[in-house]
């Protein structure tokens, strides 16, 4: 008797985000289709079935009650849960703002006083559920995505680089924009993965892959303030793509 081998079932779901990761995955679906069955991908197909998922990729931050329900459901139904993109891993730009303002204040400012819209502080997935793999990036790098999927298909945890952008910047031999142009490059505290994209375009890294492992924020703020940047501006800049406000407010910058 021939038993048909079941292809691993993947799901690609979005919470609150810009659909960037959905787009990256959609555009690279062609090369992985022979290996997986796309069980759910509301962005790309009409019939979706979120049962018995092997690998779920989830984009977006948790920003409303509806998101909490979705992420809990996805978690319960999948073996591997992969947070994709800065929103899902760090909360991205919306979470940095939520730490500067109260959610209610935001609703009132953007919508109307007494608006019935219920907003939560934007949080990464890991604030609500256990996440197996976090792949950051805004947007994620397609090669990293493919490597993560390939590893998970072998049931292995993927290797994801957690070193600073500077390493990739050196590998590409860019002139350092922090040194040569005094631009506020956040490469030293930002996770690699993009291939040092901004410095390769002669611009300052603005941190879109989120913090690298153990970022030296004090030293970063010190270096930038020596270059003439205002300390409070530096802190706002550092916080944009995922360094939590609590961490920044506890910095002890000499100067």
């Amino acid at each position: 008797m021939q038993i048909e081998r079941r292809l691993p079932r993947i799901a690609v779901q979005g919470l609150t985000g810009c659909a960037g990761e959905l787009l990256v995955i959609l555009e690279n679906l062609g090369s992985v289709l022979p290996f997986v069955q796309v069980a759910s991908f509301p962005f790309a197909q009409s019939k979706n079935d979120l049962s018995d998922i092997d690998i779920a990729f989830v984009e977006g931050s948790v920003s409303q009650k509806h998101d909490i329900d979705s992420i809990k459901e996805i978690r319960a139904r999948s073996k591997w849960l992969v947070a994709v993109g800065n929103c899902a891993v760090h909360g991205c730009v919306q979470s940095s703002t939520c730490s500067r303002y109260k959610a209610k204040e935001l609703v009132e400012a953007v919508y109307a006083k007494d608006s019935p819209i219920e907003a939560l502080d934007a949080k990464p997935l890991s604030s609500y559920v256990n996440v197996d793999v976090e792949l950051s990036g805004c947007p994620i790098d397609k090669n990293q995505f493919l490597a993560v999927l390939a590893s998970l298909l072998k049931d292995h945890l993927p290797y994801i680089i957690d070193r600073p952008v500077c390493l990739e910047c050196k590998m590409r031999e860019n002139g350092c924009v922090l040194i040569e142009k005094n631009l506020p490059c956040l490469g030293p505290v930002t996770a690699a993965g993009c291939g040092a994209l901004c410095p390769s375009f002669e611009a300052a890294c603005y941190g879109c892959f989120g913090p690298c492992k153990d970022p030296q924020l004090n030293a970063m703020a010190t270096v930038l303030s020596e270059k003439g940047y205002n300390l409070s501006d530096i802190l706002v800049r550092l916080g944009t793509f995922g360094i939590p406000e609590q961490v920044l407010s506890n910095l002890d910058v000499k100067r």
Partner: protein
Amino acid sequence: MGSVYAPVRVSDQSFAFRSVRDEAEIAFEALRTILPPKKFFYPAKETILECDGDEVKEHIEVVEPFAVFGVHPCDLAGLNALDKIFLSTPQDSHYQRRRRAAFIIGLSCLPDKHCFCKAMKADAPGKGYDLFLTDLEDKYFVQVNNQEAFEFILSCKEFMHLASDQDNQGYKKFWNDRDSMFEHNFDSAQLPNLMDLGWDHPLWQELGERCLSCGNCTPVCPTCYCFDMTDVAMFNSEKVEAERQRVWDSCQFSGFAAVAGGENFRPGPVDRLKFWYRHKLHGFEDPIEIPSCVGCGRCTVSCPSGIDDLPGVIRILAGRPQLNLEGEIA
């Protein structure tokens, strides 16, 4: 025919070895490139093994013969150091394969304020080149190091003439003059001792607080060779395969000395920075029994925080009139 690599300008202040097709592309004025020529032999990322399901095989890169033009004495010394590491037993076939394919053309240079190869005894073209050119303004004085290089010279005889006495004099004058141009001069023989004695110097704390742990200093160093090995799974047309890759690592990254169980033997930038300085100034009981710095000054110019001023650190460790570190950095 393989490629020719030579320094080209990549930004206002920086140069890099890139493939060139025309003399006009070459930046003859380049003093130091961002990455040293080690990148040709020990690339930032390379595949070591290939594994498809049941078979594991060595990834054998077919390396076309290539030439590197414009390698300065410190970089030749750096290559010699790497040779000692990678060509000691067991030999690293990946390095070896590339090393054998290369034709290295050295070029003389004049030091700037960051150069201290003289102090590190890496200022003269020693070995490791095929041809070495000394710039005598209107001509080059060519040193030939082996049979292959000699055959090359014979193949372009029409551009060459035998060195005259005057040329020999010119050569000596060039290197003598150059010798007097170095700002930094200290006795490198004392460095291991200085490093040991200065192990608890307050300087480390001061430097560590400014250190970004960005790892810029290690890839640029001609003698840094630490690496990580990772397996990368990938798709091919029918199945998921894996590659074992070797990538440059840096002792400045926080995970470098972490082990399972949450222990990290060098948890902070102070520990890590000191570790790096120890390697550079003291050396290891590894195949290079010399301090593993050739005085190229790359780490100094590529540190965004301005703390890798090796000569400055050495002076402080040596207890010379205390330099204002801030001043040095600015």
